[in-house]
């Protein structure tokens, strides 16, 4: 069943000189629950903008975006924020952990925007999620004391703590070395599989994209399918590393 549906989506901005810059043009994309899709592209191709649109952090200037069969264009800013918190989890390239907060506090932070029992039980839920990503011994560590891989694992735990329907990962291995990146991706896939979460990965790394069920290429704001021949096999990539 289609959960994310983008039809004819465009995103453009007005430049200071009055001209228009098209960042995304006529994007058509569908993703089902539990599916893993990857979008590859060079820097500046519009990957992050696409992710922001899907994650309701930004709004398209053309086309229709439906989430679970409901159009999102008519939603108020407040409703968008609430839907975003309840539906999406974000993993950023630079981790974006809250500084000077322990791993537990970081993971518990999204639950402050939930309601009822989730707010009151946020610390227990955060500890449980950290345990799932193998950081049960680092609960009180500040981000500054964690390695890059550990920080990204905290970020993954944080993105999953509200049990989102969709996890949006923007270059999740971009700041990690190959080995650590591979380990993090293994763990990310394992976690989303456990929860049945849809995973949308934005990457410039073909080996990361190869892990997805379907792959797309974004080039100058235009989305196209990626054939299997363009991708390295995951097995080959793992053995190489």
């Amino acid at each position: 069943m289609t959960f994310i549906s983008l039809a004819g989506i465009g995103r453009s901005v007005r430049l200071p000189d009055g001209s228009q810059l098209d960042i995304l043009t006529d994007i058509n994309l569908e993703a089902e629950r539990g599916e893993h899709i990857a979008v590859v592209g060079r820097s500046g191709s519009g990957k992050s903008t696409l992710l922001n649109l899907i994650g309701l952090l930004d709004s398209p200037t053309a086309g229709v975006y439906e989430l679970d069969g409901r159009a999102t264009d008519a939603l108020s800013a407040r409703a968008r924020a609430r839907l975003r918190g309840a539906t999406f989890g974000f993993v950023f390239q630079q981790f974006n952990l809250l500084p000077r907060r322990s791993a537990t506090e970081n993971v518990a932070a999204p639950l402050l925007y939930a309601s009822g029992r989730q707010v009151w039980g946020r610390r227990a839920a955060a500890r449980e999620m950290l345990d799932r990503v193998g950081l049960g011994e680092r609960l009180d560590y500040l981000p500054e004391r964690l390695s890059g891989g550990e920080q990204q694992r905290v970020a993954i735990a944080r993105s999953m703590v509200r049990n989102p329907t969709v996890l949006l990962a923007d270059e999740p291995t971009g700041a990690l070395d190959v080995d650590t990146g591979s380990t993090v991706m293994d763990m990310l896939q394992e976690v989303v599989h456990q929860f049945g979460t849809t995973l949308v990965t934005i990457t410039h790394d073909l080996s990361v994209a190869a892990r997805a069920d379907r792959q797309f290429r974004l080039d100058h704001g235009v989305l196209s399918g990626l054939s299997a021949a363009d991708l390295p096999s995951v097995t080959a990539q793992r053995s190489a590393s």
Partner: protein
Amino acid sequence: MTTLVAILAEAWSEIRVHKLRVILSLVGVFLAVFGMTSIAAAGDIGRQLVAESSERSGGRPATVTVQAYPLFTSPDTELISTALRDVVERYDIRWSSLVVDQQIVANFPGQSEYVQARSVDAAYGTMHRLLMEQGRWFAPGDVDRYAPALVVSPSFLARVGGFDPNDPPTVRLGGESPVMATVIGVLKGDDFGAPFAYLLNDAASRWVSGDNPYGQPPMLEMWVPPEQVEQVSAAATGDLRRTLPGHDLYASRVDTGDQLAQLDLVLNYGVRGIGYFALLLGGVGVLNVGLVVVRQRIREIGVRRSFGATSGRVFITILLESVCATAVAGALAIGCAVALVLNLPYEQILSVPIEDLPPFPLQAAVEGFLAATAVGALAGIVPAIVAVRAKVIDAIRY
């Protein structure tokens, strides 16, 4: 409820994480609230000191004196005293005293000396808020003593020796027909080296024949409700006009209560005005730091927006951080002000006795706390607006 708890938890977490910055930004607010509340409390204590001091000389508010001067003859003390006491009885004045000033000869060991003496009724001590250093003030039973009782000033006591309540000192009063008087109490406060004594009117008329060098007739003092001053004065002079023909009659209010009310007004508004101004300056400090910090936290705010934080939530959280911080600073400042104001040794510092130390003014404390909170809210609005206006995408990339 849960949302409110979550917002408070988030705001408190921010304060905790940025405690050094928060503390530094709150110094101004702390000092302003501390200054405001402690000066207000000190003002109350100062007012009480002035009030007590003035009540010792002029009487409590409202004290009305009535005097009768014969137009053509010397004053007839007996006649005037009887007429004045009739007024007290007729109008059932609860607190009153006849006051007669005179000079008496006190035969101290080694020397005789003229000392100033005032004969009064027992109520005079309460009416003038007289404080005792040692012993006691007159009681009604002292009228029946076989020797006059005296309440004296420290210099008087120094001339007769020390005070022992079990063996009170005595002093011989009078020249040609002296009488032995007993010192039953010593007044608190400095008499600047001039010995002074109080004795009861009845005892004075029975035992002591002092000189009245200024020809002062007896004076009636009455402590009445301030709103009845006019009525009592008119009634007393009206009656005395009939009972004391040929006398000039004066009735006037002698306490300084109404002037003190004006002083109160100046203190109140002056101190508050200065305090609010200082608080406003403290608020500017909080605003400055808040603005700088919110710009440093743009990425974090963007991340929180990705968690589902609405604009309203971001606004309230940033605002609450400021409000929580200034409220805590205000509460701490009030606590310090209370500790300071209630523990200062006023009598030693000011060398003036104080009978009723006023409690810490609750109104000033509440006002200081609310003002600090309000300043926090005002100082938090601008950073909160900046935080809300930050674009989420830019904030995350920042």
